[in-house]
């Protein structure tokens, strides 16, 4: 779905506090390839072997064609803001220093909608604004998906 260069995620340092291990899903080995992909600077999703559509969240069955088979594949780390919300309260200690911060629902060019924090604090979010995925490295070395505006230097 594009050259290697187009698939690479910029990696930034997470500006909040704490460890990624405390905010990642505890119980789902199914999601390991997704997070391993981020550590390798790639956005990796399941693609259905039947209908070929990439999907998210990680799941054993395709929500579109209902088939079970899938393979992990790179998707283009680009999309547009489908929706956004600005947190005025620090519900999670890891994100409390970032308040107010914006969480995005991003509609990828390849289809699925993914959640991620807007890493650019000085940008006013707009629905349909183009963004790209980044990987943020946390203090414990874990990598987490976030998004940045396309007008920012990549």
């Amino acid at each position, binding site marked *: 779905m594009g050259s290697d260069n187009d698939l690479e995620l910029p990696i930034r340092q997470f500006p909040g506090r704490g460890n990624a291990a405390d905010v990642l899903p505890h119980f789902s080995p199914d999601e390991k390839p997704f997070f391993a992909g981020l550590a390798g600077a790639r956005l990796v999703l399941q693609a259905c072997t039947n209908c070929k559509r990439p999907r998210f969240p990680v799941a054993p069955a395709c929500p579109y064609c209902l088939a079970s088979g899938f393979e992990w594949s790179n998707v283009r780390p680009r999309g547009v803001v489908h929706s956004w*919300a600005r947190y005025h309260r620090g519900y999670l200690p890891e994100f409390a220093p970032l308040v107010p911060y914006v969480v995005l629902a991003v509609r990828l060019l390849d289809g699925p909608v993914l959640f991620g924090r807007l890493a650019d604090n000085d940008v006013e979010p707009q629905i349909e604004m183009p963004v790209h995925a980044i990987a943020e490295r946390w203090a414990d070395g874990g990598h987490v998906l976030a998004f940045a505006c396309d007008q920012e230097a990549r």
Partner: protein
Amino acid sequence: MAARRHGVAIVGVGTVGFGTFTDSSSATLANAALERALEDSGLSRADVDGLLIQIGSPRGLDYDAAARLLALNVRFTSQTWSHGRFGATVMQHAALALTEGLADVVLCLAVFRNSAFAKIGTAGFPSFGEGLREGGGPHAETHWAGLAAPIGGAALAIQRYLHRYGIDREKLGRVAIAQRRAAAGNPLAVFSKEIDADEYARSPYVVEPLRVLDCSVMVDTAVAVILTTSERARDLRQRPVCLLAYQGIRGGPNEFVFGQPGLGVNQAEIFDYSPDKHVMSVFGKAGLDPGEIGTLHCYDGFAPQVLWTLERFGFCGPGEAADFIGDGRIELTGTLPVNTSGGHLSEGHSNGWGHTLEIVAQLRGQAGPRQIAGCETAMWGTTIGDAIIYGI
């Protein structure tokens, strides 16, 4: 010969009210609500042979403790997930059990003490663990994205909805303002002081675009609702409030507790919602059109859920709800009074049980200053498609 199907009715209700009951145990609160419901119905504790619990431990009582501590000897009991969304499901299970003869008198019990736990918005809030659940949190909680607490998913969904239909964000305030006006006549309501559009606009954001006044108020409560067959109900103290028709919660990749299917927030597919024959079938089973519903009561943890419920069940078209409610239509004197107790936003977050008490009061003609003239039918509905239509 096929078994004869018979109807089911609510015959007794009781509550301790809504507020902070830090010094009372769940069992003591539940017992007080039960005593009132038994008194209301004219039944005795020994008559109860079915028990359904909505919220279990640790905020309330699990079924086994409830039966033991409340001295209930039951032959049919069950309990749902500790979430508000299952209020109507509990009632439906009661109706199914009565219809199948698994019990003769079923007590539906909701008791919970939120004040015993840290507030939403603090790290000690117990359901924060849900965000780390396999498959993500029930309100789209995704901790690694900073998407925490139920309000985050609601905020993302309403932001998309407002954009999709080009709706002025401040129109959302009509929900909180209308429900607060209704709550002024409800002695059980936590908040009963009227608010206007200016006060609403000054209400601070919690998770933008949702303001404090768009959020429900957390309370402690115990509510007891007693159901039996329509046949037995005829001999009891109150006019029976009959369950005319009901349908369950919908689930699937396109279902999210906040927003219509197709909104694309925590949902697989993006499309424009319109009600399908399944979601509308509850009206057909009740023999009523949406326009014949006397009062609508819907789950309102956050104000947008009222708009989405109106659209989910075709009371108005997609994207039209904010205008639909703009001319007083959902107030007590309107053509479709909604959440006339003040709902979760003003009466207190009772997981829908306060709404059920209100439906019963309205249909019995016992709603005092809130009474809707000639109210003969009422409906419970939620954004996830479950519904009960009641009649007197």
